[in-house]
């Protein structure tokens, strides 16, 4: 291998390996109630210990005009111009299950961060803060019900 190429490979490895070592796959599973309405818009996001927005994991529902109904997420993430980049999909029908997988930094776990889900359904009551659970190892695998639309939410840390 030529010297410049080897230098490039080593530099790339040095950058990539710490990121791999410090992240952890997390799967968030959200099952909806049979609430008798259209598909739900859901925003799955993280806040820090002070309640400040950290990042968006997923937004289910494709029409931007309804995002304001995901009121807390919409407000908290307003300063994040890239909040929707690569994290949007279809709305989630009643009784269906949304599984979101993300590689989260270790620093997020057991550090006061919170997983939040806002929910909205057309012609039904908006539900900001439908789910609010701390991101902890102890909380992993423990199902929790939401306020209006989420029958069960749980997350797994691998």
């Amino acid at each position, binding site marked *: 291998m030529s010297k410049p190429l080897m230098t490039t490979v080593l530099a790339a490895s040095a950058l*990539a390996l710490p990121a791999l070592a410090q992240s952890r796959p997390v799967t968030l599973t959200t099952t909806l109630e049979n609430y008798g309405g259209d598909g739900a818009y859901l925003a799955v996001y993280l806040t820090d210990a002070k309640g400040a*927005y*950290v*990042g968006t994991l997923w937004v289910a529902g494709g029409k931007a005009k309804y995002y304001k109904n995901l009121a*807390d997420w919409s407000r908290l*993430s307003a300063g994040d111009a890239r909040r929707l980049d690569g994290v949007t999909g279809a709305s989630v029908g009643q009784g269906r299950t949304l599984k979101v997988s*993300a590689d989260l930094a270790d620093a997020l776990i057991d550090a006061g961060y919170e997983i939040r889900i806002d929910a909205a359904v057309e*012609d039904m*009551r908006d539900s900001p803060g439908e789910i609010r659970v701390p991101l902890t190892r102890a909380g992993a695998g423990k199902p929790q019900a939401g306020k209006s639309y989420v029958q069960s939410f749980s997350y797994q840390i691998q």
Partner: protein
Amino acid sequence: MKPTNRKLRRTLLALAAGAGAALAAAPALSGDDCDVPVERWRSRDAVMQMAAGKGWQVQRLKIDDGCYEIRGRDAQGREFKAKLDPQTLQVVRMKGRERDRDRDRSRARDDRGPARNAQPAGAASAAGPLFTPGTAPRAQID
């Protein structure tokens, strides 16, 4: 014959590829959206006439998702919301609205005053280092 066949085949392939590209480029419409060129739209008066013919009392007529949308009461006095194809005025979607009072109340609550946890613009910049660079969340619906 052979060169002609080859030419025909090439033309068909080109047409198929063009159609595929056009489909891929078309904006994704959900099932209850309308996509009618503006020159083919019927007038609002035509919508009101159609509604009157059905015995509807129109409380609001607006355009939503490329369709006309009527909110009002039907001949039996029940509140409803209907989306109409702007060209044919056929009902694309119709639903009762008995839950709207809840949503209006919820919206009124949300509109009160400044947000409790409102963040200044740019506060989200902390998100970068916390998510693994180069990876994006994935999702599936079961």
